C-alpha cells in the first residue's frame, strides 16, 4: 500500500486554503443585492407578547423590511419539530409544544426570536431592531428542570402539563431493585451534569436567496448536514419543495453537534428573501450564539450501584431529570434516552440496569446534542460512581474496574446494546503504564513537600458511534434513517471525485476519504477530490455527527468503490482478454495476476468513456453510487487517566498529565485521529473545570452570555496530551473503524473530577470544578 493510503499520517489537503485565509465560510458569501439581517429577540425568559409595532423601524435608514411571526404564520411556515419520537412508560407520546420560528404570542426564553429586520448594513439593521416596539406581559420563569417539575411552577406549553415532556424508562426495574436490596454494598451518588454552550468558533450564519425567475431557493448555512436541513425545511417547515431548495454548507467552522439542528434563522432568512426580494444574510454575534445555539447536557441524576461481597456489580439504578430548555430541538429527545441510557452498562458486566428519565421544559435555550450527546452523561455518572465505590470499598479503582470488565464478545447488555468487540484491559494497562500509575504515591508525596495536593483519577468509557442502523433507530423512534450515501465519479482521465453525504467541519474528510480511494486504487492522493456540503452536487446525505463519518460515510464510499472496481475489472478483463477473476488492482494499474499484462488506471478510465471497446451490453462510463446502512453501532472504548495538582491556597487545579488510551478499531490517519482526541479531551476538561452556562434563577437571564463570563479552555488551561491507540477492528463495517470524534469529550470529565476529588480528599464537588469550588470543598473538608 502506498504511503498515502489507509494508516498514513498524511498532512491535510484542505489546510492550504485555511492557512492562507482562503477558506469560504457562510459569512464570506456575497450576492448581488444582498442585505443584512438582525433578529429582534426576547429580553424576557417568559412573557406574552401583547403587541408588536414595526412602524418606526420601517422608517429607519436603510431598512428593507421588518417581518414578524404573524406574517410567517400567514404564509404557512411550519413549526420547528423534534424528529425523534419518545413514548413515556405509560405509552403516551412525548408532549411537544409549538415552536414557531418567529414567536407569535409568547416568548419562552431570553433570545427567542420575535422579528427579523433587514437593512442595507448590519449597523442599520441593528439600529432598526432597537426601534421595533414589542410589548410584553412578563410571566414568572423557571430555569432549573428540578424546579420546573414542582407543583405551581410556571407552565411553558399547554401541551406539556407540569412541563413534563416524557417520563421514560429503559431496563428492568424489579431485578435492579432486588439487586440493590440484597447488595453487600451500595454506592449512592447525586450527579449533576452541567449545562454547556458548544461554542464552535464560527458563529452560526445563514444566507437565504430566493430566485424569482426560477421560483427557486438557495440557503447557505453553517450546517453539519445540509441534506437533512433541506429535507426538514421542505417536509415540515413548508419553506419550499425539495426540488426547489438547494442547501449549501460550505466551509463550516466547527459544529460539535450545535450545527446539526435546523434553527429558526435559516428558515426565516429563506422566507424573508422571498418576502423582501433581496438575498438576506444573518450572522450571529457571539452573545447571540450563547443565547440561541442549542446547549448541551444539563442533567440531574440519582445513582445507585450495587455490589456483591466480591465487589462485582450486581445492579445499577439511575433516575435522571433532563432539562430540554424552552422547546424541543431536532434530536433533543434522543439524547437523554437512546444515546444515554443504552450506554449505562459502560465497560462492565452488569446483570440488571434500570434507568428512568424525565424530560422537562424550562425557560432556557433549547438543549440538544453536544459532542458525545448522552454518552458523556452516562460515562460521567458511571465513572464517578465506580471511582467513589472503589474508595468506599477500599480497593484500587483500576482493579475494581478490571474485575468488572466485559471480556467476552459479543456481549448483550440489559440496555439494548450488543457490544461487538473490545479489549478493555489492554486500554487500562496502556493508560496506567503511560501515566506511570504505580509511581503516583511517590509523586503525591513530593508534591506535598511543595505544599501541593496531588491527585489521580481514571475513567473507562465506552460509546456507541457509527450512528446508526436505520431499522433499529426507526424502531426506537427516529424520524429518519441513518445510513450514508456516496458517489465515486471516475473521470475520463482517471482522476476521481468522491461525493459524500458526510460533512467536514474540521474533521479532515478531504484527506481521509481521499486516502481511502488512493490506497484502494494505488493512485496519488492529489488525483482524488472530495465534494461535500451541497445538495445540488451530492445525491443525498445524513451528515456528520455521532462519530459516524468514518464508520458510515466512508463505508458508503467503500461500497461505491466496490462497484467501480467490479466494473473496471470487467473492462480490464475484456481489454486484456483475460478472466475477470484474474484481474488485480496494483499501483495504479489493473493487472492480470501473475503476468506482466496490465492496463494503467487512466487508460482504463478513458476506455470506459470512449466506449469503443467495452464488453457487450455494458453501459459506458465509470461512476457508481452507494448507500450504506450500518448493521450495528460501533463501540469505541478506552481508558483515560488524569493527574492534577491543587493549590490549597487558591483552589487552582493544574493538570499535570492527561493520558488517553483509546481503541478506535482501524485508523485511516493517525494524525487526524490524535487531533480529534486532543480536541475532545480539551472540551471534556472544559466541562470538568471551566465551563458552565448559568441562568439567573429568578429572571431567567443567561448570566454567562459571553467569553467574559463563560470560561473557554485556553492554551494555558490544558497540558500536552499523551495519546495512544490499540485496535480491535470493528466487525460491523468493511473498514473495521469505530469512530473517534467524541471519545475525548466522553471519557475525560470523570477522569478529571476523580483526580481532583482524590487530591482534595472530598467527593463533594460539582462540575465545573472552579478554583472557588475546589477551595470551598477543601475548606469544608478541613473544617469537619
Amino acid at each position: 500500500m502506498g504511503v498515502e493510503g489507509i494508516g498514513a499520517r498524511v498532512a491535510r489537503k484542505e489546510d492550504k486554503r485555511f492557512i492562507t485565509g482562503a477558506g469560504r465560510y457562510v459569512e464570506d458569501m456575497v450576492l448581488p443585492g444582498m442585505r443584512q439581517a438582525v433578529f429582534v429577540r426576547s429580553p424576557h425568559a417568559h412573557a406574552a407578547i401583547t403587541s408588536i409595532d414595526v412602524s418606526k423601524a420601517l422608517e429607519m435608514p436603510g431598512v428593507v423590511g421588518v417581518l414578524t411571526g404573524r406574517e410567517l404564520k400567514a404564509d404557512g411556515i411550519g413549526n420547528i419539530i423534534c424528529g425523534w419520537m419518545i413514548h413515556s412508560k405509560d405509552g403516551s407520546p412525548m408532549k411537544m409544544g409549538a415552536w414557531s420560528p418567529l414567536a407569535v404570542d409568547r416568548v419562552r426564553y431570553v433570545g427567542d426570536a420575535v422579528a427579523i429586520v433587514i437593512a442595507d448594513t448590519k449597523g442599520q439593521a441593528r439600529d432598526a431592531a432597537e426601534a421595533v416596539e414589542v410589548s410584553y406581559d412578563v410571566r414568572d420563569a423557571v430555569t432549573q428542570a428540578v424546579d420546573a417539575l414542582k407543583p405551581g411552577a410556571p407552565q411553558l406549553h399547554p401541551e406539556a402539563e407540569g412541563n413534563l415532556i416524557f417520563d421514560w424508562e429503559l431496563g428492568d426495574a424489579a431485578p435492579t431493585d432486588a439487586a440493590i436490596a440484597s447488595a453487600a454494598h451500595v454506592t449512592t451518588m447525586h450527579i449533576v451534569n452541567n449545562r454547556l454552550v458548544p461554542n464552535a468558533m464560527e458563529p452560526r450564519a445563514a444566507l437565504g436567496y430566493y430566485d424569482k425567475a426560477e421560483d427557486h431557493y438557495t440557503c447557505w448555512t453553517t450546517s453539519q448536514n445540509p441534506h437533512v436541513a433541506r429535507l426538514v425545511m421542505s417536509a415540515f417547515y413548508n419553506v419550499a419543495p425539495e426540488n426547489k431548495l438547494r442547501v449549501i454548507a460550505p466551509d463550516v467552522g466547527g459544529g460539535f453537534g450545535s450545527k446539526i439542528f435546523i434553527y429558526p434563522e435559516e428558515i426565516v432568512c429563506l422566507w424573508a428573501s422571498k418576502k423582501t426580494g433581496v438575498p438576506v444574510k444573518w450572522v450571529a454575534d457571539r452573545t447571540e450564539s450563547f443565547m440561541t445555539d442549542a446547549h448541551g447536557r444539563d442533567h440531574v441524576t440519582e445513582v445507585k450501584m450495587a455490589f456483591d461481597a466480591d465487589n462485582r456489580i450486581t445492579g445499577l439504578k439511575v433516575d435522571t431529570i433532563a432539562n430540554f430548555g424552552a422547546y424541543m430541538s431536532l434530536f433533543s429527545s434522543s439524547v437523554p434516552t437512546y444515546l444515554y441510557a443504552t450506554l449505562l452498562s459502560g465497560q462492565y458486566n452488569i446483570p440488571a440496569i434500570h434507568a428512568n428519565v424525565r424530560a422537562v421544559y424550562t425557560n432556557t435555550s433549547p438543549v440538544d446534542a453536544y459532542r458525545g450527546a448522552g454518552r458523556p452523561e452516562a460515562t460521567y455518572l458511571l465513572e464517578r460512581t465506580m471511582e467513589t465505590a472503589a474508595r468506599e470499598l477500599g480497593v484500587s479503582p483500576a482493579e475494581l474496574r478490571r474485575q468488572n470488565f466485559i471480556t467476552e464478545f459479543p456481549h448483550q447488555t440489559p440496555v439494548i446494546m450488543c457490544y461487538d468487540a473490545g479489549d478493555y484491559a489492554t486500554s487500562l494497562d496502556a493508560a496506567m503504564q503511560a501515566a506511570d500509575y504505580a509511581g503516583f504515591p511517590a509523586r503525591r508525596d513530593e508534591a506535598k513537600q511543595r505544599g501541593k495536593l496531588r491527585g489521580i483519577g481514571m475513567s473507562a468509557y465506552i460509546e456507541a458511534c457509527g450512528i446508526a442502523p436505520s431499522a433499529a433507530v426507526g424502531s426506537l423512534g427516529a424520524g429518519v434513517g441513518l445510513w450514508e450515501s456516496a458517489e465515486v465519479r471516475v473521470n475520463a482521465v482517471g482522476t476521481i471525485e468522491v461525493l459524500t453525504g458526510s460533512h467536514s467541519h474540521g474533521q479532515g474528510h478531504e484527506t481521509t476519504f481521499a486516502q481511502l480511494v488512493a490506497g484502494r486504487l494505488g493512485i496519488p492522493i492529489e488525483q482524488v477530490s472530495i465534494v461535500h456540503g451541497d445538495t445540488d452536487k451530492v445525491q443525498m446525505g445524513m451528515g456528520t455527527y455521532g462519530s459516524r463519518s468514518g464508520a458510515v460515510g466512508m463505508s458508503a464510499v467503500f461500497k461505491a468503490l466496490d462497484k467501480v472496481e467490479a466494473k473496471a475489472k470487467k473492462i480490464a478483463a475484456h481489454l486484456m482478454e483475460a478472466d475477470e477473476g484474474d484481474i488485480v488492482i496494483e499501483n495504479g494499474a489493473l493487472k492480470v495476476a501473475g503476468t506482466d499484462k496490465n492496463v494503467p488506471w487512466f487508460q482504463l478510465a478513458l476506455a470506459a468513456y470512449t466506449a469503443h471497446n467495452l464488453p457487450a451490453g455494458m453501459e459506458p462510463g465509470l461512476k457508481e453510487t452507494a448507500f450504506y446502512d450500518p448493521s450495528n453501532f460501533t463501540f469505541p472504548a478506552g481508558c483515560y487517566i488524569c493527574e492534577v495538582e491543587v493549590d490549597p491556597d487558591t483552589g487552582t487545579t493544574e493538570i499535570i498529565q492527561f493520558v488517553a488510551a483509546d481503541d478506535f478499531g482501524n485508523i485511516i490517519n493517525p494524525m487526524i485521529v490524535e487531533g480529534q482526541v486532543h480536541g475532545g479531551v480539551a472540551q471534556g476538561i472544559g466541562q470538568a473545570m471551566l465551563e458552565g452556562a448559568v441562568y439567573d434563577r429568578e429572571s431567567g437571564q443567561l448570566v454567562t452570555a459571553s467569553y467574559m463570563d463563560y470560561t473557554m479552555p485556553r492554551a494555558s488551561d490544558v497540558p500536552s496530551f499523551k495519546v495512544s491507540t490499540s485496535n480491535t477492528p470493528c466487525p460491523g463495517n468493511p473498514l473495521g473503524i469505530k469512530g473517534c470524534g467524541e471519545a475525548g469529550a466522553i471519557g475525560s470529565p470523570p477522569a478529571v473530577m476523580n483526580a481532583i476529588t482524590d487530591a482534595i480528599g472530598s467527593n463533594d464537588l460539582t462540575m465545573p470544578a472552579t478554583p472557588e469550588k475546589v477551595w470551598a470543598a477543601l475548606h469544608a473538608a478541613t473544617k469537619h
Partner: protein
Amino acid sequence: MSDVSLTVNGRRVTGTVEDRTLLVHYLREHLGLTGTHVGCDTSQCGACVVHVDGKAVKSCTMLAAQASGSTVVTIEGLANGAELHPMQAAFKENHGLQCGFCTPGMIMAAVDMVNRHPEGLDEATVRAELEGNICRCTGYHNIVKAILAASQVMLKGTAQVAA
C-alpha cells in the same frame, strides 16, 4: 464618514467608510479580505488578529479610521507568493488546525509571538502567550507544537541573515 488610507498586504488602499466601521469589517467587506474572522463580540477570541505597523492587534477592536495611515498585514499577505510562511507550513505539518476558523488569527498571533521572542520559545511561554486566541477544535496540543516548530525555522532564518 471618514476617508481612510492604508497599506494592506503591500498594496495602498483608500476608501470612505462610516466612522463606526471596525478595521475587521473594512478588511472583509471593503477589501474582500475574508481570511480575517470575527468569533466574538468581547475582544477575546483572537480570530481577527492582524498585524498593524508590525504588531499583532485585534482588528475587531480598532476602528478603520484609527488604523488609517498604518501598514496592515493580514493572513492573505503572509505567504511569499506560492511559498508558505514557515508558520503556515508548520500549522499544516503539525495538524495545528481543524475547522480553520481561528487559524488566521492564530497564525498571525504566532508570527508576532516569535518576533517578540528572539531568544526562542518554550511550551509554557507559547501557552501563556496564546491567552488572546481561542481554539475549540485542537485542544491547542498541535498548535503549540506548530508554533515551537516554526519558531525554530524562523529564528534560524534570522540567525542566517544576521550572520
